[in-house]
């Protein structure tokens, strides 16, 4: 065939029933949260708005690649921003891709990152109630993640205990960039609650902790920030391992979302190597770091790395383990992965089932 060069193999997920670990619902507007907020916090939202550790009132610190950081074909015809219209999401995504289960990640607005902590906690509560009332109840294919004001572990635990019994939650939502590395003891009550309730811990790339985006300070371009954000998965995972989180919480299940996965083997090799040399400093880490990672960590695939030689992708997944990857689309964001076209690699039926469905069923304890 001359002309178009199609750079991919098609993943035959038809009829499989895909589990998508990263779908972003959006509010039609901030006022959509009003029914779920107490009067005092409605006033706060109207008067002062959302306040995070960013320079602008109505923009991200690094302006994104597209409006609402979304695919240009995801704006609902009936109005509202991408991800805000369930009927359109069904038609454009859930139905046409035969999504069996989609796990919602409420990235925006962020309760966790509010500078007024009490308002942040109220926002988390409201977002959790909104997810149930407007998404998971009308659409049983969708499951939710409990968003928590992570900097306040006590409030987070209270919110987990309040929301977990509602049944449609399969995970606790955190972001990578907390004010301290997430393995630190101040966050452990959240991990204990996750273990207690049997909910997975879904850690999504992002968060605004006020710290520079790189160990060398703030970069200049979204080209850098977008990737730098994902790099944060590496120190995050190092923190969880080296602080002994997996030793203290052996039943905790962690899913790392929107960091890609090509970095994982090199990090595990590095952790193992230096752990072996530095064991006296971290005696509480009794096993090589890769042991815990293989036992308790899953990597959501998006954005799938695209090596020039496709065989390298297979080698990479062999290193990580086919049982450790869970598919994620990031719908409706611009850097999303199409379930059928993201893997530029022919997968066997068993590999397809594992990555697109079965691994996630295990990670999230889906029925």
């Amino acid at each position, binding site marked *: 065939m001359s002309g178009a060069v199609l750079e991919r193999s098609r993943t035959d997920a038809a009829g499989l029933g895909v589990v998508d670990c990263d779908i972003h619902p959006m509010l039609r507007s901030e006022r959509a949260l009003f029914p779920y907020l107490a009067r005092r916090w409605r006033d706060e939202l109207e008067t002062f708005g959302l306040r995070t550790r960013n320079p602008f009132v109505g923009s991200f610190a690094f302006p994104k690649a597209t409006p609402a950081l979304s695919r240009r074909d995801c704006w609902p015809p009936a109005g509202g921003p991408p991800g805000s219209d369930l009927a359109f999401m069904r038609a454009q995504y859930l139905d046409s891709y035969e999504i069996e289960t989609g796990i919602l990640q409420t990235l925006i607005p962020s309760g966790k990152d509010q500078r007024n902590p009490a308002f942040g906690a109220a926002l988390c509560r409201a977002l959790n109630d909104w997810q149930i009332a407007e998404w998971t109840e009308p659409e049983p294919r969708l499951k939710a993640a409990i968003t928590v004001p992570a900097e306040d572990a006590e409030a987070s635990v209270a919110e987990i205990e309040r929301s977990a019994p509602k049944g449609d939650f399969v995970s606790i939502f955190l972001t990578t960039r907390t004010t301290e590395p997430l393995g630190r003891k101040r966050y452990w009550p959240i991990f204990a609650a996750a273990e207690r309730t049997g909910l997975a811990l879904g850690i999504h790339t992002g968060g605004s902790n006020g710290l*520079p985006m790189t160990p*060398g300070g703030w970069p200049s371009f979204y080209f850098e920030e977008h990737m730098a954000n994902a790099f944060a998965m590496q120190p995050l995972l190092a923190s969880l391992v080296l602080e002994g989180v997996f030793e203290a919480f052996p039943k905790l299940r962690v899913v790392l979302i929107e960091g890609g996965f090509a970095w994982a083997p090199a990090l595990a090799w590095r952790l193992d*190597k230096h752990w072996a040399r530095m064991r006296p400093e971290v005696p509480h880490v009794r096993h090589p770091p890769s*042991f815990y990672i293989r036992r308790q960590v899953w990597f959501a695939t998006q954005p799938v790395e695209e090596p020039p030689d496709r065989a390298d992708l297979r080698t990479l997944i062999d290193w990580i383990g086919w049982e450790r990857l869970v598919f994620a689309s990031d719908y409706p964001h611009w850097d999303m992965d199409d379930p059928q076209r993201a893997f530029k690699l022919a997968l066997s039926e068993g590999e397809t089932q594992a990555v697109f469905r079965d691994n996630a069923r295990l990670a999230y304890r889906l029925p």
Partner: protein
Amino acid sequence: MVALGGTGEQGLGAAMKPDERAERRRKAADRLMEFRDLGPIDCDLHPPTPRMAELLPYLDPHWREVMLSRGIDGLELASYPPGSPLSARPEWRGPGGRPGGDLALIQREVLDRWGTRRAILNCLHGSMAMFSEDMGAALARAVNDWIANEWLDRDARFAASILVPARSPELAVAEIERRAEDARFVQVLLLAGSELPLGRRVHWPIYAAAERFSLPVGIHAGSAFHQPMTSVGWPSYVVEDYVSQATAFQHQLLSLIGEGVFTKFPRLKVVLIESGVTWLPGFLWRANKEWRALRPEVPWVDRSPIEIVREHVRLTLQPLDSPPDASGLAAVIGQLGSDDLLLFSSDYPHWQWDGEEVLPKALPEALRSRIALDNPRQTYPRLGVRLGKECVS
């Protein structure tokens, strides 16, 4: 299936018969002989960090008085606590456990042992991390002069990197210009944990000077700690900091690419020193994908990150964050996609590996001489290393 890690704890030799063990030892000895015969160039060797008493003779009267009057000392970089196992192999410590010992120890343990042709001294001194630009510059001058007098003058196999006060590009350039007259200085040294991303234009005078004098810019592991080591906050442990160094290199490399440093300075070479190496393929795959999407924001990035890195970036070998099996190492080296990228380094005295075999035995045969000699020679023109054939022609 070989997966994420391997403990390395199984004790590889334990299951072998005695004759297998002897054979293995013989092969290792052969490899070492071959390596020595190459006359390798060691691109990362750390002399002991000078204490203030050693630097006083190299400070002018004002700064000498300041150091004494204010009792300033202890400027080892916090990324390398002297007592930490990583900071020195047990037999590579001098009196009092000082990492690196002295000239005699380095000659015996490194230069003579491997038949090292040239070795580049990277002095990890806190002058690179000073908040005061002037004090940083004074100390960098003193360290560079100390290196010249105490090390370069005493063994012709040594070369060295120029320390600069990175917080002040102006003073950094002045120091590069002052020391570049001496051809034994072959590189400019910066820290991976910088105050501002290294690609930012504020640093460009440093790169202009480096390019002018054919000095590669070496970015070394370690942080000035003007920022946390990670974007997720200050880690608790030394090992956590050290593991996160690999991520710091990713950020810096992305900054250099995204800001267009290699477009602006087409002859510049950057050497990532003590980076861990094996993160690079995955980084590049992601960076390529990102560039295709976001190129219009940085239109001066007119080639893919993979092409840019192959032309401009080199990496020292140790520590090599390698997979637990030989075929895994071969695979990840293959993923680098070029034989030009790696430079031999002992990383003396850091405790990155044991025994005598500084080149991992699983390295593909064809690469060994490239890494040991050819690549360093091409990266550091000021070393002036000519091989036999070139002398004739």
